[in-house]
């Protein structure tokens, strides 16, 4: 039971902490907390408005995964014709989240009394800090990918939902393939890209995350950057492309494009065009004219290389084999109530682990979580959504801490109230 001496002790340690960290005192302001919370509400409101125009992913990237975003007052709102042209900076999720963490931490150090009476409140705030930090870490490092497996086959890689890479694959050795991948960020920077793992240099002529493409009847009818192409399927099929801006909507079909020249010590080897298919480059094989977009061959110094612009790929140290799939429907309807994939994880040293993946029951393996995402029973394949989130446990721990804090605080006051009541009755 706290008494006056405890309170005094708490106040004196608080004074000591304030003296030790004087620069944290303004950061611990309650006004700052309220301002940040208010700005968070403004941010959510504006991002919700913007989501209509630029989609969930666009709004998330522009407003929540940034320090600030520039917003234009909607033209259809009152006075929009005058106000729309004014760029309004909006504090982003990382800025507000970061400041909230600092504000709470500063309050923890310079404002809260570290006494048993306030222990519950300290726990609640600690839980909230953990939630905020966990969310920031998740935003920064979480990766979402997909893995498609045909029944009876296995896969040892996952592909990102967003972002592409130029893969140059040496397939000459029958025992292994060497894959050299250039990520989208470097392709966006442009210029000359070289690597000690490549026998040639890649000079980026044009790169974009979306385009319209067409097979035209002659070379002269190709437009823009595609005119320069003199090698590969872009040349043989007379592919013409028109760059366009990326579509952020959930139904988006963004075809990334890359026009690049390869050079070696002897000079230019030619200019190629490659396109990425939003549903995976294996879909190019369905089109006889464009099948080579999945693998454009180049022979160089006795080796056969293949080129392809594809979804960013991550190879895994294990493979997952699809043994069987099952989907069940509500009786008399075509509404599914369960998708189920029976898989075997094949690891090094002939180790295996069998698992059943179905709705709300993901497979967790080596830091990755495989959720049942899509399934096609007719075509016999399954698609997993694969999440890598090292901080996935943090929200659970934070909620437990907040719950303990609330129980402590309410319990403490209840006990005090009951004791006071019994004393009064006595």
């Amino acid at each position: 039971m706290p008494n006056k001496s405890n309170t005094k002790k708490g106040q004196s340690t608080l004074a000591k902490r304030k003296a030790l960290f004087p620069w944290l005192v303004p950061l611990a302001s309650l006004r700052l907390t309220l301002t940040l919370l208010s700005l968070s509400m403004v941010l959510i409101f504006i991002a919700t408005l913007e989501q209509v125009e630029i989609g969930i992913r666009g709004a998330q990237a522009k407003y929540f995964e940034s320090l600030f975003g520039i917003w234009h007052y909607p033209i259809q709102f009152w006075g929009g014709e005058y106000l729309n042209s004014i760029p309004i900076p909006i504090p982003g999720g990382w800025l507000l989240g970061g400041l909230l963490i600092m504000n709470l931490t500063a309050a923890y150090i310079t404002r809260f009394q570290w006494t048993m009476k306030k222990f519950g409140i300290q726990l609640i705030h600690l839980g909230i800090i953990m939630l905020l930090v966990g969310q920031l870490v998740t935003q920064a490092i979480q990766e979402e990918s997909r893995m498609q497996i045909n029944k009876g086959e296995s896969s040892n890689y996952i592909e990102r939902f967003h972002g592409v890479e130029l893969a140059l694959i040496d397939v000459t050795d029958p025992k292994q393939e060497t894959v050299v991948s250039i990520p989208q960020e470097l392709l966006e920077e442009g210029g000359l890209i070289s690597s000690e793992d490549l026998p040639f240099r890649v000079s980026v002529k044009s790169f974009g995350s979306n385009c319209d493409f067409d097979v035209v009847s002659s070379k002269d009818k190709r437009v823009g950057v595609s005119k320069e192409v003199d090698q590969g399927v872009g040349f043989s099929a007379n592919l013409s492309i028109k760059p366009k801006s990326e579509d952020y909507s959930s139904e988006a079909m963004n075809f990334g494009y890359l026009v690049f020249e390869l050079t070696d010590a002897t000079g230019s080897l030619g200019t190629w065009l490659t396109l990425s298919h939003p549903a995976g480059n294996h879909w190019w094989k369905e089109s006889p004219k464009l099948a080579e977009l999945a693998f454009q061959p180049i022979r160089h110094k006795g080796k056969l290389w293949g080129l392809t612009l594809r979804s960013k790929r991550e190879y895994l140290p294990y493979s997952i084999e699809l043994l069987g799939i099952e989907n069940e429907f509500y009786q008399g309807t075509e509404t599914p109530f369960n998708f189920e994939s029976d898989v075997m994880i094949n690891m090094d040293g002939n180790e295996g682990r069998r698992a059943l993946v179905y709705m709300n029951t993901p497979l967790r393996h080596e830091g990755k979580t495989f959720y049942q995402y899509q399934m096609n029973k007719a075509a016999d394949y399954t698609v997993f959504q694969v999440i890598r989130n090292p901080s996935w446990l943090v929200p659970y721990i934070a909620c437990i801490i907040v719950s303990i804090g609330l129980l402590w605080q309410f319990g403490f006051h209840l006990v005090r109230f009951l004791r006071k009541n019994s004393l009064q009755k006595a």
Partner: protein
Amino acid sequence: MIHSSMIPAKAQLVCGTILILVSLSSCSDEPVVKKSVIAPEYTGPVVAWVLPENWGENPALAGPMAGSFHVMTKEGPKGRIGVMPFRESVSSLEVANMFAREIGYGLLDEENLVPLLEKKMIGAREFEWIRLEEQRQTQAQKTVLLALYRKDSQTWLFPFIGEKTLIDEELENFSRFLEYTVLRAGSKPIKALSSPVSSSPPPAQLPPGPPPPDWTIPSHWTPGQASSMRLASHKISDEEGNELDFSVTTFPGDVGGLLANVNRWLGQIGLEPTDEEGLKQYVSPIKIDGMAAQLVEASSSDKTFYAAILMRNNSSWFFKLTGEKTLALKEKENFSEFLDSVCFHKP
């Protein structure tokens, strides 16, 4: 030593805030070129080579060629070297007959082939080596050197065609090329017959080979440029300078099938490739020497081709007339008469 109390509180606050925000916004990985070594995934055929310094690559590949090269000399490019994978059965005799007519041989049979064929080890590879010398008296004596490599169910043909002196000079380069060229079939097997001159001795008396087919060429068609691929080659022209090219070629197997061949020809006259459904508008059934064949007709704005395809004894025969549209229309009847005249001398 600097103590924290020596730095003003506001400066500490600003620096601390900036540091935390910067560290938060730079959590993601730095983009770099990555290398991964993985188990083989590519299922297509692998053919790769290192060319001798004095060889050049021909950009346009004809028919089933996987690669085509020439020798660079002071007088310009000379000779023709190729890499040809076979997806269907092919014997040494069939291969030899593909080239023999060009340099004056009649149709070879097993007996004729024996003295022309030898086995040769180059590096770790064993080749069937067929050397055909020009049979006619010409200024530049031509030689056809055929190297056949069989591995499991795959067959690869390397033809080297050129003047005798050129082939003799380039023999070392050709051997090195054969030794180091990477050859690997894809998941679709390339099938071939076992060698007719393998470990088992030939039968005591081989049945005589079939005589070559006959046909009647219209009198106004003039002989055109011959090549190893062409059993007949003629030109047709009119007073306005319009020209047509006529050829008869044969290859083992189906050379990719009807659709692939039609699409290749459509591309040659500037038309879009078609699919199985669209094929019907170009193809109609005909008979050649009483055997079922297909006639393919297509026209673009200025060009036309007529082609007849016949599959006989696991070989494809192509009879093709192509060129200027109006002249082709005039010659269509002559082409039909030519097809009617083809005779394979069936037993």
